[in-house]
């Protein structure tokens, strides 16, 4: 099973990790960025920092939020091993506005990972501030699609990414929409998580209830059309709670996209509730 759940630090997250982070200020952002990047040095990975603005401004910001110990470690890193880039160059965009092209953007990430391997590194580790790519509903729909595809690649390639979103600029609801597509997230950033899983179409984790059910409906609306059916296994081993609103959302979204979902859970109660309601597009299998 993938490492999944809430994390309070970006330290010690294994090589193929995909982390969603909602940050409150620059200090928090750079604390996490340094934790994540310095682990990559020890792991022999190539490192990247991707943000908005200019490369020079990003480098200056990075220097400003570096303490002495971090700087000493950093100075020892070969310059070829570390890139600073801006989102506008790092991603492919659709023809209308700053909306990412999910497929082409993920292809570029896969190519960058393969380059890192070819250059002798153990993989690629990136810190991405994606705030400016998730400002509007249209941007978020496209970026969620990208996050889903990137997460799939993160399960099979040595590609580790922390995707950071500015809470002050986007608001917690928009940040939740983005970070819920990562197995690991900052604490409380989203009630539930939906991510890639080697034994299922996707995994659902965390808590889904009446207040997060609308977010689940939006998220499923973005990712279910990308999956092929007819029957999809949903790994619910890390799903701590789901109420009837959540179950109704799973059923309705599956029906809308012509899919049959099979939620696997160790929790007998979920099966009893689903059975009592009678859900045509959702079956609950209890794992013993």
């Amino acid at each position, binding site marked *: 099973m993938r490492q999944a759940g809430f994390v309070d630090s970006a330290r010690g997250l294994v090589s193929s990790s995909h982390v969603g982070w909602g940050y409150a200020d620059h200090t928090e952002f750079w604390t996490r960025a340094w934790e994540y990047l310095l682990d990559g040095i020890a792991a022999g990975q190539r490192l990247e920092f991707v943000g908005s603005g200019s490369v020079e401004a990003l480098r200056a910001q990075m220097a400003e939020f570096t303490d002495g110990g971090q700087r000493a470690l950093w100075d020892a890193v070969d310059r070829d091993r570390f890139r600073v880039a801006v989102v506008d160059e790092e991603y492919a965009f659709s023809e209308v506005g700053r909306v990412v092209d999910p497929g082409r953007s993920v292809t570029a990430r896969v190519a960058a990972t393969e380059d890192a391997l070819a250059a002798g590194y153990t993989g690629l580790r990136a810190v991405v501030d994606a705030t400016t790519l998730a400002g509007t509903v249209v941007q978020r729909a496209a970026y969620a699609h990208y996050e889903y595809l990137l997460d799939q690649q993160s399960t099979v390639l040595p590609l580790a990414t922390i995707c950071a979103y500015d809470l002050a600029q986007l608001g917690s609801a928009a940040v939740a929409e983005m970070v819920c597509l990562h197995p690991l997230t900052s604490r409380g950033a989203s009630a539930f998580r939906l991510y890639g899983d080697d034994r299922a179409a996707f995994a659902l984790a965390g808590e889904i209830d009446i207040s997060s059910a609308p977010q689940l409906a939006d998220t499923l609306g973005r990712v279910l059309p990308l999956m092929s059916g007819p029957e999809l296994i949903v790994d619910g081993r890390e799903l701590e709670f789901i109420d*009837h609103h959540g179950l109704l959302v799973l059923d309705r979204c599956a029906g809308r996209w012509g899919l049959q979902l099979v939620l696997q859970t160790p929790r007998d109660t979920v099966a009893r509730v689903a059975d009592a309601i009678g859900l045509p597009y959702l079956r609950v299998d209890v794992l013993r």
Partner: protein
Amino acid sequence: MTSSVTGHRFRHELFLYRSAEELVEFVVPLARDGLAAEEPTLLLLRADAARAVRHEVGPSPLLAVEPALAEPGRSDEHVRTASTLLPSYSRVVHQEPVIDPSQWSEWRRLEAVLNLALRHYDTWAVCAYDQHYLTPGMIGDLHATHPLIGHDGEHQRNERYRHPVNFLIEHSEDPLDPIELTPPVVELVDPSPTTARATVKWFSHQWLPEQDIDKLIFATHEAVVNALRHGRPPTVLRLWTRPGRVTVTVTDAGPGPTDPLVSDFIAEPSTDTADEPVGEPALGLWLIRHLVDVARRSGPDGYTLRLTVTHPDIRC
């Protein structure tokens, strides 16, 4: 003989007996007449009565004799079972189980509810009770919930029958569990559903196995959501523990569901609310009933749902 019962669709009749012989004497002609009229007949009887009736009536492809219920069980399951059986049978006799006084409040509401829930079925259903296990109060409730009464081979209109909605409104109080008179382990005012779930989990873990805790968490969540959405503030959650048993009450200051069909979880509530990811309010209540023992009362303090999970192997 059955002239007084024609004109009804669902005919819900009470029969009180004092001995197995009396029951058999009542059932045999009822079954014979039914079979003579080619009416499919279902007799749910305990072993002795079943043997005697089979002997008297003889085999018929239209006759089914099955074991009676041994335990009262859950009301919603009875409604569901009856809804699947009744379309196949014109006559049904059920030898009722012995109802413990602690279960009576629920049981009498079920008897009232059946008049509403099964009203579209064209079936004559007789509930046969052994008088030895009934108090005068129980007998009064049974009269009030059965529009027909069988006596001395006659089947007549029961003058003491009350409209089920009125009966349900008047009997919407379940008795207090004595533990409610003791200080709760925890009391929360206006908890969020998340806090309510975490509280139940935290305080139950040493008293119940995980699957039972899950049921109580779910039921508490649905009760709190209903209180916050449909009740009046404040919502108060209280929790008591005993080995193998955890009790939660959720009280809001409102009057509770006004429709007894909602509060009694009769019909399967619709989940068809177009694109809204929110089910009918009644659905939460109806699901609670599937998972835990539930009691309700309304009064000056508001409306209270009491949710209890008992693990039989641990109970002391």
